């Protein structure tokens, strides 16, 4: 049956893109913020506040004690704030209306990240 073919295709795409995003690297853990100005990189182990610029205004990104979260954003639904704090490589938070992407790159995926992927 073609049903199984499409199920296999969908699962393959999930695993393939997951591997591409979560593939381990030797690079140190860092925070990648993409906004209207381009991509900016920040160390994960230094507390700081980042003002990301988008079409709606400023999205405030906080790096605190090895975690990253969106503290404030001018979007309507605030899904980005509700996404909470990320701490492991491959995880991301994003404010799509304001076109701001924040993700952690480098290092190896932790067991916490794998749990999140299974959920």
């Amino acid at each position, binding site marked *: *049956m*073609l*049903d*199984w*073919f*499409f*199920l296999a*295709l*969908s*699962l393959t*795409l*999930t*695993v393939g*893109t*997951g591997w*591409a*995003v*979560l593939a381990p690297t030797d690079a140190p853990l860092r925070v*990648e913020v*993409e906004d209207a100005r381009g*991509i900016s990189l920040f160390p994960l182990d230094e507390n700081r506040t980042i003002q990301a610029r988008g079409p709606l205004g400023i999205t405030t990104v906080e790096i605190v004690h090895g975690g990253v979260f969106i503290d404030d954003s001018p979007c309507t639904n605030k*899904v*980005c704030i509700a*996404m909470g704090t990320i701490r492991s490589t*491959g995880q*991301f938070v*994003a*404010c*799509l*209306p304001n*076109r701001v*992407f924040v*993700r952690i790159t480098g290092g190896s995926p932790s067991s916490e990240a794998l749990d999140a*992927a299974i959920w």
Partner: protein
Amino acid sequence: MRPSGKPPVRTDLVAFFGALSLFFATLEYLFPKPIPFFRLGLSNLPLLVSLGFFSFREQMLLLLLKVVGTGIVNGTLASHVFLFSTGATLASFIVMYGLHRLVPPGVISLTGISLAGAVASNAVQIALAIGIVYGPAAGVVAPWYFGLGTFTGWAMGWGATAFLKHSKWLGRLRAQA
């Protein structure tokens, strides 16, 4: 006198299915979104169940009602979200309609068709996000979209199959087609 040839478009029935689609799109707000803009695809249910008895022109009209209607209801008609919605809906419709017309029912079920539509929809959304709207960083949502899309595509197909099996109203519509 109506000229012979193509059967007339049943606008009242298409409008009803369009309204159902909008209703389901609104119902989606009841469910929390694990990732931004991810949709369960409830509003695709009317498209899915009508594959068996709507003509191509009726399906296209329903598609237009769904895309523009949800854009108006959700307030996204003039934003980039509308581009995502249109691209994804069009891609999934082409795949689902093509499979339904070209592949015999014994080879693929409505669940498989729904799953194929979900794959097409998510692939187009990710491609649009990376290529046009957000840039390469948007690729991080890909595994989530495909993973959750596998589950929701399967579930929507299962729901549509169960509805087609048990609904007498739909049974009458299909018999008339």
